[in-house]
């Protein structure tokens, strides 16, 4: 910041920049004041903070899995697939019936280590199919259209999928059955961590590592990276563009389907045709937070968003004396998005569409 007031400083001065700078200070001040108030009042014990953070990580890992789908598609096609939330819903909503059947026959509780992966694979296949169909029917014909057109198509596809699934399965709520081995908690230090949260977090982490290995260490991953760097030149190098794009959608869809079942283990109720809408937007926020197009960024953004949502209302808003702080949980999530877009538009880890750009 220049302290010398000369003509050049005055010429370069912009009210917008000034206001944004003030806003930056105000927001940071509010966050600090709120946190300080809450922590000093000692209303929550440190054990409660730890358990909130852990539940935030579990929720965040689900956001991360869905966010990976957004980020992969953006990296390759430079397009936000707004129907990805519905891809998540399709896997979750279809697998719930299989899960209920498993539960009725007793298979789920007698062989959970076999039943749960079967459910995950099933949901992944359903979501993969929906994603591939989406690409083929809704996005491929618009490959060369102006950027806005596929975006609107994605929103339309999202509504279409919601109501199609409502037509298939009805509008009443379903619930995943509770799995016995996931009940209860085990102590970590002085905190009782629910087993379901640990399982969710580990499963998501495993899937994320698998994806990272796929993209970085395999030939098809190299092809994906090449296509995201430069489509035309990759075609010249002998990469089949269409096949790679379909593969990207398939991978994103599979992860979303897996996320659907994993979410069902963790939060079993509330499965219905509309369940993909809010996680879809939150996962998109997470992908932008971490840096759109950036795979580790999506993972980090998801976890970060989950933790912020879990501790934000109690830490900041309650400390500022705002009533009904937990009702404003979504406000925190989306304010975070706006702040990131203002102050660091490339996201936490930076937008990475290609390794090197000349």
């Amino acid at each position, binding site marked *: 910041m220049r302290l010398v007031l000369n003509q050049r400083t005055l010429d370069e001065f912009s009210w917008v920049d000034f206001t944004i700078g003030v806003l930056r200070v105000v927001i940071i001040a509010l966050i600090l004041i709120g946190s300080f108030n809450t922590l000093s009042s000692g209303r929550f014990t440190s054990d409660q903070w730890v358990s909130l953070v852990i539940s935030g990580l579990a929720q965040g890992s689900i956001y991360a899995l869905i966010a990976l789908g957004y980020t992969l598609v953006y990296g390759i096609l430079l397009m936000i697939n707004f129907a990805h939330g519905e891809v998540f819903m399709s896997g979750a909503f279809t697998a719930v019936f299989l899960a209920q059947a498993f539960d009725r026959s007793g298979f789920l509780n007698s062989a959970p280590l076999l039943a749960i992966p079967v459910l995950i694979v099933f949901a992944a296949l359903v979501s993969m199919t929906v994603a591939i169909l989406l690409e083929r029917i809704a996005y491929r014909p618009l490959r060369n259209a102006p950027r806005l057109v596929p975006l609107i198509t994605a929103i339309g596809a999202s509504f279409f999928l919601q109501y199609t699934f409502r037509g298939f399965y009805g509008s009443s709520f379903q619930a995943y059955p509770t799995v016995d081995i996931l009940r209860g908690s085990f102590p970590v230090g002085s905190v009782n961590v629910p087993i379901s949260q640990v399982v969710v977090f580990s499963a998501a982490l495993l899937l994320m590592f698998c994806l990272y290995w796929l993209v970085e260490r395999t030939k098809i991953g190299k092809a994906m990276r090449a296509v995201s760097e430069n489509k035309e030149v990759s075609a010249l190098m002998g990469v089949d563009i269409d096949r790679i794009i379909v593969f990207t959608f398939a991978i994103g869809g599979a992860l979303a389907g897996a996320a659907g079942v994993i979410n069902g283990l963790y939060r079993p109720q*509330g499965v219905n045709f509309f369940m993909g809408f809010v996680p879809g937007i939150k996962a998109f926020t997470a992908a932008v937070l971490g840096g759109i197009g950036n795979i580790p960024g999506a993972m980090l953004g998801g976890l970060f968003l989950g933790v912020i949502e879990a501790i934000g209302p109690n830490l900041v808003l309650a400390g500022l004396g705002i009533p009904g702080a937990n009702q404003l949980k979504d406000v925190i999530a989306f304010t975070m998005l706006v702040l990131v877009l203002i102050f660091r538009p490339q996201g936490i880890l930076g937008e990475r569409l290609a390794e090197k750009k000349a």
Partner: protein
Amino acid sequence: MKRILPILLLLTLFAMLTGVQAAQLECTDEIGCVEIGPDDPITIGYMLTISGATSFLGEDSVGGIQIALAERDGMLLDHEIELVAEDSLCSAEGGQTAAQNMAARDEVLGVIGTSCSSSAAAALPIISSAGMVMISPSNTAPSLTNDDTASGGIWQPGYFRTAHNDLFQGAVAAQFAYNELGLTRLATIHDGSPYADGLQAVMAEVFTELGGEVVFQGAINVNDTDMTAILTEIAAAGPDIIYFPIFEPEGNFIAAQSDETPGLENVVLMGADGLLSTSFPENTGAAALGMYLSGPYIEGEAYDAFLESWAEIIGGVPPSGFHAHAYDAVNILLDAIEAVAQVGDDGTILVGRQALRDAIAATSGYVGLTGTLSCNPTGDCATGEALAIFEITESELEGNWPPPVVWTPPPAEAE
């Protein structure tokens, strides 16, 4: 000159036609009249939640209406009764859309609706300014029959309800918690809707009057799935009982996740009629065991006969608790239409809208399934006599419905 001739011709034709009609029946109503030709049906409508998470409420009320119509063989005053359906969802947007669609149809005399208080808040002004009558079978928010805008009342003329006012339901819940269960520390959660917010406010007020302490009042959003933050906050406040008068699936999440939250293992959970449906214990599983729900409770011979009709005509049992209220609402409406209708010689019927409103408002001592109903000037036709506290037990988890009644308010309770 050339243009004036056809206009004059049209005017004369028009005068002749109206003159011909005026010769038969005259409309002296302040708002206006609905004229029903000799072969036309009498049209009533309903705006209920027939889709979405709370569709059980709408289906339940529709069943009550259908049974009432079946008992009249679908006829009134030798005209067929036509039922127009609109979906009010359980939101303000749904209520507004349904009301606009309904108000656009001039032939509708009255509407049974809405299911949810949030839809009613948006639908009320539209239906009222269209001159129609609206009788709700399951709106319970106190603000809907409160005409004092300074205290948050939004009543408009033409609105009535056969469901209990939440001023009663909240009081019943508080009395049960404080007097019966002996609990003294209350925490409440609502979801921002007028129904939930109003009900938890009444519960908290009466609980405090009885001598208890309200340690926490908070809210979540509809569509929230993760309740750990608010449950942790509640655990920090150390309550005996958590009262959450909300709907599925948020209610299911709170019930299920409160088991996971340290500090809340022994807390009593209580909900209200929003969760009083067969899908709630099914979807929540073991976490719902031992939970209490307040809601409408009707008994008697007439009700048993009603249930038999239900099993015959619709099959099974009613999915929620307001079917009898819908039955009474439709009967009150049809009886009022019958009372104020002017019937012409050729079978034309003229119904004055203001006359219809006045007739329903004058309902007094009407013996319905839900008790003896008398409408007060701001639309409340029911008292709190048909309420009870239910408990979810093992048998509900296996599909038995309705759950057993554990407490009913002592009859000495007046308003």
